[in-house]
């Protein structure tokens, strides 16, 4: 219990520092966990309480993702998004998977590392677009929709990974049935739900908290992945009043997700048998794979390498979803690799998204100067 409070206090200080420097806080939380936990000083240990808190953090993260999935709001040009999304999926996941497999990871672990390569951190990407005032760029809109595309891919991957060796037909039938019930409740109980959310006493926040935890508990009883059901709950409730749910779920997400990051760091163990060499290669590749996919997307959609550079510098950061995959399905070795991946990419990403405009300007003026120097002497 004391460990939990120490961790909370450290995180609060780190949050203040990271906000002051306006860089993402996620790598700091993980680093704090590593320093305080098994791999470092050993002050903080993971116990039942911290595990429960981390689990709540993960559930609320996924519930939020579901709330944002408003599929009725479609993008103006779906084919463009599909192209960009598929390029990202194939290139990033391909590079991550192949590299991990060649470095000696088993098939399933390589697949998880590949997915962690692909899924960027929606929270970091969106915040950095706002804070670096890049919303107007033509690439920004595509990047925002690519995040939604990644969320959809992640849902499919969670379904695939958690189906495991169970009876597939029965498994998916149960999921479809649960989804149906949830959408029916959201549809027929809409008036009632909104009347609860409109109250200004403790009921809306209590209802939100209970709804998420009850859904997760029921899912486990029914033998279907609680993670998927919580995303589905968010998506179903998004048809009622998503803004109110976001408002009531935010405090839980904010606090417990920080716990989730710290205790992910705490459980990292460098003695788990992964060498620094492997980690370094994967981290460098993680930055490079987004450069390749960004360039390809920039060239196919906007016909410009500079656009590709811009897409790259804003989508380097991997974060919460990569960690979630590591926690849910990864072995300790995969956890260590993904922790390093997240720390390196978020820091590189924060730097690149801040200075990409300079980089762009530098390249443009350099090529202009070059073009001027090489201009043939005509018209004499």
């Amino acid at each position, binding site marked *: 219990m004391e460990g939990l409070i120490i961790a909370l206090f450290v995180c609060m200080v780190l949050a203040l520092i990271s906000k002051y420097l306006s860089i993402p806080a996620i790598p700091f939380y993980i680093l704090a966990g590593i320093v305080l936990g098994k791999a470092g000083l050993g002050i903080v240990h993971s116990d039942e309480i911290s595990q429960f808190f981390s689990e709540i953090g993960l559930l609320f993260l996924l519930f939020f993702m579901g709330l*944002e999935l408003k599929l009725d*709001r479609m993008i103006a040009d779906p084919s463009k998004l599909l192209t960009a999304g598929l390029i990202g999926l194939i290139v990033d996941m391909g590079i991550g998977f192949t590299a991990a497999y060649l470095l000696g990871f088993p098939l399933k672990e390589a697949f998880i590392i590949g997915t962690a390569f692909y899924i960027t951190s929606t929270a970091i990407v969106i915040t950095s*677009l*706002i804070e670096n005032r890049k919303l*107007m760029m033509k690439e920004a*809109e595509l990047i*925002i*929709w690519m*995040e939604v595309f990644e969320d959809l891919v992640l849902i499919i991957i969670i379904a695939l990974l958690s189906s495991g060796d169970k009876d597939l037909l029965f498994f998916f039938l149960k999921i479809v049935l649960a989804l149906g019930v949830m959408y029916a409740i959201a549809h027929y109980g809409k008036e009632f739900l909104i009347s609860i959310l409109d109250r200004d006493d403790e009921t809306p926040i209590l209802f939100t908290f209970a709804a998420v935890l009850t859904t997760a508990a029921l899912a486990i009883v029914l033998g279907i992945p609680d993670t998927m059901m919580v995303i589905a709950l968010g998506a179903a409730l998004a048809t009622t009043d998503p803004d109110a749910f976001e408002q009531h779920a935010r405090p839980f997400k904010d606090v417990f997700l920080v716990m989730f990051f710290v205790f992910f760091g705490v459980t990292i163990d460098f003695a788990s048998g992964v060498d620094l060499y492997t980690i370094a290669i994967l981290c460098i590749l993680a930055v490079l794979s987004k450069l390749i996919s960004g360039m390809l997307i920039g060239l196919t959609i906007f016909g410009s390498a500079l656009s590709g550079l811009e897409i790259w510098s804003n989508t380097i950061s991997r974060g919460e979803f990569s960690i979630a995959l590591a926690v849910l399905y990864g072995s300790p070795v995969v956890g260590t690799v993904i922790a390093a991946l997240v720390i390196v990419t978020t820091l590189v990403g924060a730097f690149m998204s801040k200075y990409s405009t300079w980089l762009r300007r530098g390249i*443009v003026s350099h090529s202009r100067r070059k073009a001027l120097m090489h201009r043939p002497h005509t018209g004499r």
Partner: protein
Amino acid sequence: MALRSLNLPGIGTKYEFETDKGDTVAIFFTKTGTIQMYTLQKGCKTPSAAEMTPVEARRLGNILTGAIIDADQESVEIAFSALADLRVTIHTFYIPKTVAGKTIEDLQIRAKTGATVIAVCRQDKNIINPAPSFVFEDGDAALVIGESDQIKKFEREIMVE
């Protein structure tokens, strides 16, 4: 001028329009509560941006509608183009010492100027539709509505009394 608006997941609402001369203005109401405004000159690659709080954005909006703004007095002119181009101006005035202690009736505001005091702001409390017997105090801010001529008359005849 074509205005388009769209919802961006995780970000908020975007409004964008292109002026007749080819410049582009984009406004984003972000979920964090701030408002970002980008302007992009025709033929230019990088936009310039400004981030505003809702209060600052409203102030900017008042300036853009063409109302006169003094340091701390604001006015808004609303034109109802469907009603024979009816124009109504709303103006805030800080009550000077000379007026403090008098009622709306004493000052004969309606008879003298034609304008109407529709609200008074006193130390962060708002009094809507003050009665004729309402007594002004020093430091009150009065919200006056009328045609722009009536507002000018109010400024000349009541505020300097």
